[in-house]
């Protein structure tokens, strides 16, 4: 069994308007030292998945089913208290906006010390020294002084470094980064991504990067999982997704990605329409109302939910089009278009 394994994970939220199927049958696995990128638009269920792995939906209104195996332990059925003890220690999370994700009333050091002392029975002094070490390790200058600063006294990039230091303080084996660079400006983004790559190597952690930015996953990920409407629509190695993508939604994502090797004056190729409602998910393939190639399935996409099937060598695709046709479309119609545009 892999270090982390999700089996048919479903996270649904009952609301007054109906049942929100945020995550609807998600399965994947991840080994230590590997990086998985989860990509998708807002509302595709990326963040709900990550919070679900951490057990942060437990005790709330969410209905969770399926299995989450972490290092041989099942977490969906485990007690809240048991999962809490794993949080921060065995699995940790880096959040999107470090300004709102850190408590404004406590110093950065206090927040790292707090994280460390929950799981380690050490004195404040030892924990403080550890916090200074961690801040130094994530590249914060003068960490012995900055440890007493408040989050608002840090720049955006420094705050995200501090957030990473906090997440890594207990040496977690699974690290989930939810849009770790979205709130940062571009030059700082690159630094943070480099830092995360280095730290992952040092700590030999399994890393999940959640983002809507394909550039970020291209930079870091070994494997990529594309989510749409709470389901995985395509899964493969980084190479599979960037060189041989087979799902029309992935094509759309690639087409909407600004690239340096294109003429800046030329238009991007956005995906038409907007993400589906998670309450009234479109019938059949959830992507069919926005799919350019929908009619080529002969109406099948409108009525039947496609299975996630292996295309070749672990590359999984959820599409009614036969694999050969998808490859042909990519080679003949989509790829030339992306390159020409």
């Amino acid at each position, binding site marked *: 069994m892999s270090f982390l394994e999700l089996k048919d994970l479903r996270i649904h939220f009952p609301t007054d308007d109906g049942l929100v199927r945020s995550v609807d049958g998600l399965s994947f696995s991840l080994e230590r030292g590997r990086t998985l990128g989860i990509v998708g638009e807002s509302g595709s269920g990326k963040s709900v998945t990550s*919070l679900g792995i*951490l057990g*942060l939906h437990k005790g709330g209104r969410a209905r969770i089913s399926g299995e989450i195996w972490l290092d041989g332990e099942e977490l969906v059925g485990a007690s809240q208290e048991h999962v*809490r*003890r*794993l*949080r*921060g*220690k065995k699995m*940790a*999370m880096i*959040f999107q*906006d470090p300004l*709102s*994700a*850190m*408590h*404004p*009333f406590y*110093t950065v050091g206090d927040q790292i010390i*707090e*994280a460390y002392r*929950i*799981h380690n029975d050490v004195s404040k002094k030892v924990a403080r020294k550890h916090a200074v070490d961690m801040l130094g390790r994530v590249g914060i200058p003068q960490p012995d002084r900055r440890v007493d600063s*408040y989050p*608002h006294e840090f720049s955006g990039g420094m705050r995200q470094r501090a957030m990473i230091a*906090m997440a890594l303080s207990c040496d977690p084996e699974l690290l989930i980064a939810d849009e770790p660079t979205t709130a940062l400006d571009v030059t700082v983004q690159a630094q943070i991504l480099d830092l995360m790559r280095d730290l992952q190597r040092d700590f030999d952690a399994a890393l999940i990067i959640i983002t809507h930015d394909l550039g970020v996953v291209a930079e870091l990920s070994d494997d990529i999982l594309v989510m749409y409407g709470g389901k995985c629509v395509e899964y493969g190695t980084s190479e599979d997704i960037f060189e041989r993508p087979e799902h029309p939604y992935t094509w759309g994502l690639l087409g909407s990605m600004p690239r340096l090797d294109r003429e800046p004056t030329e238009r991007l190729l956005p995906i038409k329409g907007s993400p589906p409602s998670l309450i009234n998910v479109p019938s059949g393939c959830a992507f069919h109302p926005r799919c350019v190639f929908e009619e080529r399935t002969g109406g099948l996409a409108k009525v039947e939910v496609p299975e996630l099937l292996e295309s070749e060598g672990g590359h999984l695709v959820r599409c009614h089009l036969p694999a050969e046709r998808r490859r042909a479309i990519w080679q003949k119609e989509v790829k030339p278009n992306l390159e020409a545009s």
Partner: protein
Amino acid sequence: MVSYIIRRLIAAVLMLVVVSIVTFSIFFVIPRLAGVTTIDFASRYVGSKGASAETVAAIADKLGFNDPLVVQYGRWIKGIVLGAEYDTGASVEHCPAPCLGYSFITKTPVWPELLDRLPVTVSLAIGASIIWLIAGVATGVVSALRRGSFFDRAAMGVALAGVSLPIFFTGIICLVFFSYRFGITAPGGSYTAITENPGEWAYDLILPWITLAFLYAASYARLTRAGMLETMGEDYIRTARAKGLPESKVIVKHGLRGALTPILTIFGLDLGLLLGGAVLTESTFSLPGLGKYAVQAIQSNDLPKIMGVVLLVTLFVVLANLIVDLLYAVVDPRVRLG
């Protein structure tokens, strides 16, 4: 941080100056603008209803009511700082600093009387505020965490009653039942100084405390509930949970701390006002505090006394605000910047 404290202190002193000018104006300038002659005013001020016109004119002159207003204001401030002499015609009365006025009706300086009443009011206000803070905040936190539950609905219903019911109503009901029918609390008008007998002091005050606290706890519970609902939805709460913090610590250390700032603001104002006399509570329970004193002064038209109480109340409010401002900086480090 130091510069913040200094700025707040300077602001507080300026505030006191403004407050003294406004208080002075209310009592000395506005009547004159409204057409009250200095003679009429003097007659009111010393409470000499039967005296002849010449006597009153002489008193007005002696008390300096015919001087320019600036001079009068200066003399009044000087009295507060250094003490003053009041010539009543028959004798010259000394009013030691801080001279907040001299009552010609009871022939006493105001300040020592205020000082006598102060312990009663302080006992009432501090005791009640501790009860309402604990009860109100705790109720608010539990309500927020169990939003929509039976406890939440019941607590908010009671809170609505607490906010709406006037103290003279709840106070009298409580007195009738707990003191007179069941005899478990002290009857109205009981007060023992804490220095005399702390047990008796608490026994005498417990009913006024609870009645007064009920009124305030209600609004604090609603405020805390709203604040907690907001902070518990913040990203940093999710972070605290992601760290593996036990839920109790998440709620108190991260949630409540964030929700406490607005409560602190209101608390400072409420306590400051109450220290100047809980007029209704003291009247209902016949407690000899500043509020009762003010009511009596108003009933007997004793202007110097009323003015003394007003000045003391404003002083408390300004001080309470200063303390709140300083506590703010302790609670929220971002405040120290601005």
